[in-house]
């Protein structure tokens, strides 16, 4: 499907902006009456081009032009899609900020990225479990600067130390990923088919594997209005065209739990990114639906890296065409010609054309297939979103009232904190909610008198020891020392349409 003569150079050096022609040539070309997207109603390519042009006018009026920079802080919506494509069509660089970040986090990100224009939601219509929302945007100028590189897309990762990493991708790099999907072929939806996307369109899997690939290949990109099991299956049933579900492991579990799913002859397969589901969940899903269930491995920095779209090689995956994966000292490295990070290049992250994935893994010498063994750092996956526990722990420990803290992960993020005199866990919870998005916040915060330490004074991270310390803090009334912190595991990929759906929960104070 690649248009003849199309070429985008992979040169991220300072230029007068990116050539915007890739948007029309790679994404928007095609029959005017072809349905490209389905949100509330179908959107044809002609509709989409018209909507994007209108957004271009608004962004241009705010001063955005070729080589400019814009930050989008929008929930999944038609407004998100059209503003992003409008920014690219103007030749500008778009930074995506998760719509559930706190005002504190957004402020930090804006100061760091210094965009010239910021698009936020002025009014949102929708609620929890919505796959998308309706947004009336607010387009505002910001005292930033033009893009100083020719990158098209900026995304922030949860930082392992200090601030988040700034991940930048060129238009060429995005097109290459779209082409990678084309080359993978079998198991990837083809022109005339549908992708029903349960994965967030503001993150790489849903954005490139769903939206951009769909636009390029003539595959309808469909988002369920409601992300319940019934809402997802009804969306599949609404059209007879062959349909692929794109999601994260949670969606496999959710759909597997449907006792008597309706007959869906058009449902040809499901592909998920993220960690492997348990063998019994995999088997249960395949038995129930009788369709292909595939897995993909990828990163925000690269996009899709390896796939097993037919579940033939579980738990191994085959590297995607054009990428090389190798193992070095137990870590997987992926070929990537240029560093994906803005700012200083940390050689521990990228060096000499190789990206360190920070994933432990191995490569089979005979087949070239890769196997992932888990993270080598403190990153965990929360409903498909990557959260670095170090970021959570540092933020928590830096709060006034907190003497020290340890954050662990066991099905959910948990925090163990020592409070300073006079501080309460409710205050800590309130302050943390100002600084960390809901999905990053601990589900449970336990106050301890003393955090366990090793003989050399290092904090112990063993959950059993921490739980024992928490029990020691108030053995008679353990429940009273637990402050429940809502918001974690806010499934970006489930309720993407919603702002943080979790309201503050009652806090039970301890007797400190």
């Amino acid at each position, binding site marked *: 499907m690649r248009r003849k003569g199309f070429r985008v150079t992979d040169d991220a050096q300072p230029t007068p902006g990116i050539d915007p022609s890739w948007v029309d040539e790679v994404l928007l070309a095609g029959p005017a009456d072809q349905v490209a997207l389905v949100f509330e109603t179908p959107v044809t390519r002609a509709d989409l081009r018209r909507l994007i042009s209108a957004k271009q006018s608004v962004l241009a009026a705010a001063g955005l032009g070729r080589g400019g920079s814009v930050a989008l802080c929008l929930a999944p919506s038609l407004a998100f899609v059209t503003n992003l494509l409008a920014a690219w069509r103007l030749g500008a660089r778009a930074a995506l900020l998760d719509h559930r970040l706190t005002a504190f986090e957004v402020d930090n990100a804006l100061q760091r990225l210094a965009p010239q224009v910021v698009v936020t939601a002025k009014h949102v219509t929708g609620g929890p479990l919505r796959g998308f929302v309706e947004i009336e945007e607010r387009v505002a100028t910001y005292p930033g600067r033009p893009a100083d590189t020719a990158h098209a897309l900026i995304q922030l990762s949860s930082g392992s130390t200090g601030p988040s990493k700034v991940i930048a991708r060129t238009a060429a790099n995005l097109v290459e990923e779209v082409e990678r999907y084309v080359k993978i072929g079998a198991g990837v939806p083809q022109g005339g088919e549908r992708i029903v996307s349960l994965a967030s369109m503001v993150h790489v899997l849903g954005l490139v594997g769903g939206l951009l690939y769909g636009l390029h290949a003539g595959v309808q990109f469909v988002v369920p209005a409601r992300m319940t099991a019934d809402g997802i299956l009804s969306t599949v049933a609404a059209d007879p065209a062959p349909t692929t579900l794109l999601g994260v492991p949670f969606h496999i579990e*959710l759909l597997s739990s449907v006792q008597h799913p309706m007959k869906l002859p058009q449902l040809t397969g499901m592909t998920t990114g993220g960690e492997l589901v348990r063998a019994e969940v995999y088997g249960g899903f395949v038995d129930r639906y009788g369709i292909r269930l595939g897995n993909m491995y990828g990163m925000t920095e690269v996009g899709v890296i390896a796939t097993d779209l037919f579940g033939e090689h579980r738990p191994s995956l085959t590297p995607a065409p054009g990428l090389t994966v190798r193992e070095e000292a137990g870590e997987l490295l992926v070929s990537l010609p240029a560093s994906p990070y803005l700012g200083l290049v940390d050689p521990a992250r990228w060096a000499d054309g190789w990206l360190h994935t920070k994933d432990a893994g191995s490569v089979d010498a005979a087949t070239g297939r890769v196997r992932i063994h888990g993270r080598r750092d403190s990153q965990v996956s929360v*409903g498909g979103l990557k959260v670095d526990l170090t970021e959570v722990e540092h933020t928590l420990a830096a709060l006034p009232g907190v003497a020290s803290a340890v954050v662990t992960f066991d099905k959910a993020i948990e925090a163990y904190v020592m409070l300073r005199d006079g501080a309460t866990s409710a205050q800590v919870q309130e302050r943390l909610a100002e600084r960390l998005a809901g999905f990053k916040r601990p589900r449970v915060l336990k106050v301890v008198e003393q955090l366990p330490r090793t003989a050399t004074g290092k904090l112990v991270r063993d959950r059993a020891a921490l739980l024992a310390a928490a029990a020691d803090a108030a053995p008679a009334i353990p429940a009273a020392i637990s402050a429940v912190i809502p918001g974690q595991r806010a499934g970006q990929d489930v309720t993407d349409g919603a702002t943080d*759906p979790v309201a503050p929960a009652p806090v039970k104070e301890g007797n400190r």
Partner: protein
Amino acid sequence: MLATYGDRSPADIAEGIDSLELAWLVHQLEQHYGGPLDLDDEALARMSTVSGTLEVLQELKVETGSR
């Protein structure tokens, strides 16, 4: 019902309900009651805590019972 997601024990269930849990819970409730529940955005928003969910379900029960 919440504990069936992720094979947890009921004691592990926090008061706050996140969106993955909410999607799971709504599905389990719909299967339990044998059909879609009349839950609008406002009702779902209130189901962000265990106690809020109990309130919403109580109201649903009353409405259903009064028909």
